[in-house]
């Protein structure tokens, strides 16, 4: 029998209010308590309270925390979200679990969606100093270099984020319409590879 996608890997209790928090991945590092909005840092089986985080202001979105959706033949459960501001607006990065317990990231910005997977880094953080838009690196061309500011998070995440933290990124386009993103923030450099997806292909379940 297939396991329910909403079945958590394990459940912990909020050290502040005792509320049961579902964790969907073993390497979850940060969770927000749905009950008291405490930020809980998870380290070596221990749950450490890092303070309170503001609740994300509700915004209209196809993707909602803990509400499954289908993209083509795959079902996804959004388990966490980070919202970044670029001044006039914001974009969101959703941490997803699929029905094979694999993790994905979905970037949502005004109807533009990119579905990506975390891959091992092949570049160094110093690339952010030298790279320019339009520059070609192998089969990739740099299409965007920008930064955002974390304005909040929800659910659970695989690394620590702090409100107000700057988030630098480089976006590359590939010849086969694929996309690569390099991100750097105090928690380190991360590389993601994926594809643009059509929001009309998303079916909220």
């Amino acid at each position: 029998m297939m396991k329910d996608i909403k079945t958590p890997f394990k459940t912990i209790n909020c050290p502040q209010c005792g509320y049961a928090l579902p964790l969907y991945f073993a390497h979850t590092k940060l969770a927000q308590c749905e009950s008291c909005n405490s930020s809980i840092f998870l380290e070596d089986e221990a749950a450490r309270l890092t303070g309170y985080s503001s609740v994300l202001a509700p915004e209209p979105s196809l993707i909602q925390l803990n509400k499954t959706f289908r993209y083509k033949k795959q079902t996804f459960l959004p388990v966490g979200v980070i919202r970044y501001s670029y001044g006039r607006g914001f974009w969101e990065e959703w941490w997803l679990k699929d029905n094979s317990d694999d993790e994905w990231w979905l970037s949502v910005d005004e109807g533009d969606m990119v579905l990506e997977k975390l891959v091992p880094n092949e570049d160094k953080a110093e690339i952010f100093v030298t790279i320019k838009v339009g520059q070609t690196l192998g089969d990739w061309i740099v299409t965007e270099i920008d930064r955002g500011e974390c304005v909040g998070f929800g659910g659970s995440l695989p690394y620590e984020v702090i409100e107000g933290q700057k988030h630098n990124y480089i976006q590359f386009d590939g010849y086969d319409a694929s996309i690569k993103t390099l991100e750097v923030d105090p928690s380190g450099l991360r590389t993601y590879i994926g594809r643009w997806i059509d929001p009309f292909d998303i079916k909220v379940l």
Partner: protein
Amino acid sequence: MSDTKSVYSIKCTNCAAPLEIRGGGRVTTVTCQYCNSVLDMTAEYKVLSQFHDKYRPPVPFKLGMVGEIKGVEWTIIGWVSYRTTDFPTERWSEFFLYSPLYGYGWLIYEEGLLSFSKRVRDFSLLKWQKDGSSKVQFFRKSHYRLVEEPYDIEIDFVQGELSYVAKADDLIRCWDYDGPSHKSITIEKSGHELEAYQNEKLNRREIYDSFGVAKDKQVDEKLGAVDSMFDEETLEASDESRRSFLGKMAILIVVMILAIGYSFVSSKALLQIDANQPFTQSIRVDSSAFLSKIVIKAPTPKILDTIKLDIYNGATLIFTIDKSNLYSKSGYIGKTWDKGDDEATIYMKLDSGEYRVALGLSSPLSANDKVKIVIQEKVMRLLYLVIVLVLLFISVLVSYKSSSRKESSEAKSSGKSKYLWWFLAVLFGYFMFGFGSMVFLGAFYLFASNIGSANSSDSDDWWDDDE
């Protein structure tokens, strides 16, 4: 996404007119409806440029209208009017749409024809550039064909919010690719920007109703050159005609399959004799449908070479075969058997009537050496049916391709398709039911084509002509 969920107002920094902002976080400019100043929303609404004295085309849509396209609610937040550089009188408007859930899109309006356009990020522009903007593109499991040579367009008029800085007379180079299901792709190149859009024709009535366009503002007329690009009026009609076309095709194939099945039980033996001496026998052909089949079988090739078979209609020799000759009064039907053969099969057309079959032998046969003569009527040659089926299959493919393409040559190809259909029908009728049916179909075609041409002035639907 926008930090603000609802509409808010600002004052134009040039003329102080109130401007409503509706369009999410990615809009960068707003053009004042009163003084036509383009304001930079990323730099305290600084005036970037102006669209003074620009032609404001009459359109049925206006900023702030809300309507549903593809099941999603969109708000019109901006308006750009374009003209082509080669034909500056050719103008159309594109309305910038915003949905908090689906982002941005465009409602394209051209002389009453409507389509929806959305930027597609998964079209590989890098590959497109690398391939030298080739004439056929493959995108989302479909092929798209370049409609015409690339052309240049200019921005003519701007109003409301946009996600880029529009300047009067900005030059944009476009490549249009037509695909299936009323979809197309447009590649736009301007300055340093290169973008791909997927377009889809819309039902005009539904969009007018959904956006609340007043009846007296709804434009129905189409003009000249735009018809071939955005022939929205025939959108439903062409869907219907394609369904009708495929339905009739399916019926025809079913009829053919039934005919093949029928042929196996319909054939009737007129003569079946094992002979070792000459004979003359009368036969009667009841039906000229399908073909008649003559089989001559001998124990050895040497014996077959002694045979001469004649068929007479009254006193007229209509068929004869021996080791040297094969003759048919109705025309060439092939050559006689080869040396070494011990059997010959001939298919020919015999009209209904009385016939006399005469077997001759150039040397007598022994009592044990008998030749078998079989004559059947209403026999169908599967080879002919296979040819007709292949032709039908090709015609389906050609017709389907041509109907899915919205090229201006569609009328011509549908005309060709019409003749192909009649040709196949006549061919089919001839093989199935004989010469009489061919004459009947020919006469019916002349009758029906007169009705068709009378109706064609009332309808744009090419299928009407075929009927």
